[in-house]
């Protein structure tokens, strides 16, 4: 298609990058959603540097089970080896670069390159080179030619993440309380497994527009009006003017969305399992299942009240009360690939499981009654970030700015409670601009903002 908006991009200085989002006013430079040079920096400074979601342990049950994922646009193989360890290997042969795996998932004994037959173990070690003694005359140091592995691979609650940077902090610290609360939400009803079948589709929007949308409970009422009319959900129920609860954490971690009041939570905590289920069915809370008391351990006394959307910075959305994950993979400044993982407690009774599946299938994904309309808004917003006149306008993240206050719970968890607002989006872009401006982890640690306190 004709498309002349691939502008000639300038190189970016660190202070220019920081100026892209003005935390004082809430204005965001629209070029963050279209600029090709910024995008290249993101691949380096957000994706290769950060912790990227890879898979859940249940996806790789046996030795040799593998699942292809990405760190930015670099393909990696997530594979369980004979020792049961999950490895993350760059999917490119050390000989000439050919891909080892071209499938999306499967089971392998080892990875043999289809070009010249180099053979790599499930841990990435180069274990076979045809002609090693003849053609190579024995002169090849296999120990230096294994597949490149992620600098670190760590997991929390069975969810695996990887980073290409050896300087990255431990995953546990990177997630921080807010990120851990997010993953806790997924496991709040017991041990989980990923349902077979990951929906994947590509939307013509910048990946960050998809991400910031998950904090955006403002759009639900209008964007998803038709899904409401159709009867699949009730937009009003989740956007009560004063039911929101936002939690902001280090490194850009955040959770936003409806929350239960402390009073209600106290009441729930006193219920028996049966009572809780009955209460959830009554429709008084916007969730499928109410969390058992044990969830407090995973989510904290404040976090457990959240019925909202965690985002694990940069690009993993936890939704449907923890029953779906949506990974947003960058595909150039104007395209994003969305992957939907559906997750259920292992021992979920069949009727519940069916109810979850029904929501998972019908709300999100390209044919989902909600998602259909989101894509349209996102792609048009991305388009406006490129026009000569329209890209000069900012994006107005003004909602609630200066009107709320960060509250600190007894357990130290902080939250912003009250109206639907744009606190989550502001924190996301503020953190993002710091990630992209910093040349390395040391600079990022030295320059990044701590989560806001006081009036926000």
């Amino acid at each position, binding site marked *: 298609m004709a498309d002349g908006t691939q502008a000639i991009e300038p190189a970016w200085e660190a202070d220019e990058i920081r100026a892209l989002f003005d935390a004082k006013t809430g204005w965001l430079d629209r070029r963050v959603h279209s600029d090709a040079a910024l995008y290249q920096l993101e691949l380096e400074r957000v994706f290769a540097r950060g912790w990227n979601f890879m898979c859940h342990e249940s996806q790789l049950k046996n030795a040799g089970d593998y699942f292809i994922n990405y760190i930015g646009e670099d393909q990696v193989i997530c594979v369980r080896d004979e020792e049961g360890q999950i490895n993350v290997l760059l999917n490119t042969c050390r000989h000439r670069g050919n891909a080892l795996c071209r499938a999306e998932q*499967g089971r392998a004994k080892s990875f043999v390159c289809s070009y010249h037959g180099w053979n790599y173990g499930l841990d990435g070690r180069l274990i076979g080179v045809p002609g090693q003694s003849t053609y190579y005359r024995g002169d090849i140091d296999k120990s230096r030619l294994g597949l490149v592995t992620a600098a670190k691979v760590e997991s929390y609650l069975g969810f695996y993440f990887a980073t290409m940077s050896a300087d990255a902090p431990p995953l546990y610290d990177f997630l921080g309380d807010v990120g851990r609360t997010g993953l806790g939400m997924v496991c709040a009803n017991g041990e989980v497994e990923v349902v*077979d*079948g990951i*929906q994947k*589709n590509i939307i013509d929007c910048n990946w960050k527009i998809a991400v910031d949308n998950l904090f955006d409970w403002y759009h639900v009422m209008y964007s998803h009006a038709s899904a409401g*009319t159709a009867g699949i959900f009730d937009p009003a129920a989740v956007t009560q003017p004063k039911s929101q609860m936002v939690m902001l954490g280090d490194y850009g971690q955040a959770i936003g969305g409806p929350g239960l009041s402390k009073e209600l939570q106290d009441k729930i905590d006193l219920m028996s399992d049966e009572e809780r289920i009955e209460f959830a069915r009554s429709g008084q809370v916007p969730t499928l299942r109410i969390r058992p008391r044990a969830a407090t351990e995973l989510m904290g006394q404040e976090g457990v009240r959240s019925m909202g959307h965690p985002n694990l910075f940069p690009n993993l959305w936890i939704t449907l009360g923890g029953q779906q994950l949506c990974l947003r993979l960058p595909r150039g400044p104007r395209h994003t690939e969305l992957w939907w993982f559906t997750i259920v407690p292992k021992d979920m009774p069949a009727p519940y499981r069916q109810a979850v*599946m029904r929501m998972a299938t019908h709300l999100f994904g390209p044919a989902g*009654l909600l998602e259909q309309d989101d894509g349209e808004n996102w792609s048009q917003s991305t388009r406006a970030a490129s026009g000569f006149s329209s890209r000069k306008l900012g994006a107005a993240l003004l909602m609630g700015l200066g009107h709320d206050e960060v509250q600190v719970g007894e357990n130290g968890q902080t939250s912003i409670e009250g109206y639907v607002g744009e606190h989550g989006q502001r924190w996301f872009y503020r953190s993002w601009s710091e990630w992209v401006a910093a040349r390395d982890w040391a600079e990022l640690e030295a320059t990044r903002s701590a989560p806001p306190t006081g009036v926000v």
Partner: protein
Amino acid sequence: MDGETRTRLQAAQLSLAERALLQFEVEQFLYDEAALLDAREYRAWLALVTDDIHYWMPIRRTVTLSDIGMEFTKPGDMAYFDDDRAMLEMRVKKLEAGSAWSEDPPSRSRHFVSNVRIQETAGAEITVEVAFHLYRTRLNSEVSSWVGRRVDTLRRVEGGFRLARRHIFLDQTVIHTTNMSTLF
């Protein structure tokens, strides 16, 4: 229709001429039904669907031959569509809501139903396989093509057929479109 199926149909005592007439009827039904979707006559289309319809599109994956058994997700696993009649009615209600933004301006679709092969007739039910190409264009430049195999079950009723099952096996794995807001 492989040899086995043909034998089934022949065993069903259908002469060549009878099979040809059945083919004609089935094709016309499938074309009519497709035309309703392309004309955005969703209510009229719903009227051609049985109460117990299963409308399903599993997820396809790029896999190696050694893993070919996992090419499609199974019933009960995740799918792009896994609809009963109530869910199809919800989809239609959404389209009629006046606020289905992805379909307003409405997209323009064309359902190509090709290579129609009656696979089995069992009582009132006829199972038919087709190669489909769903072409859709939206706004001024968006173009999508969804291609694959469809297995439909038609049930004969007074004055025609009703669609009792539609299983859609897409050839694509990653979906290269912003949405699938169209019915197949």
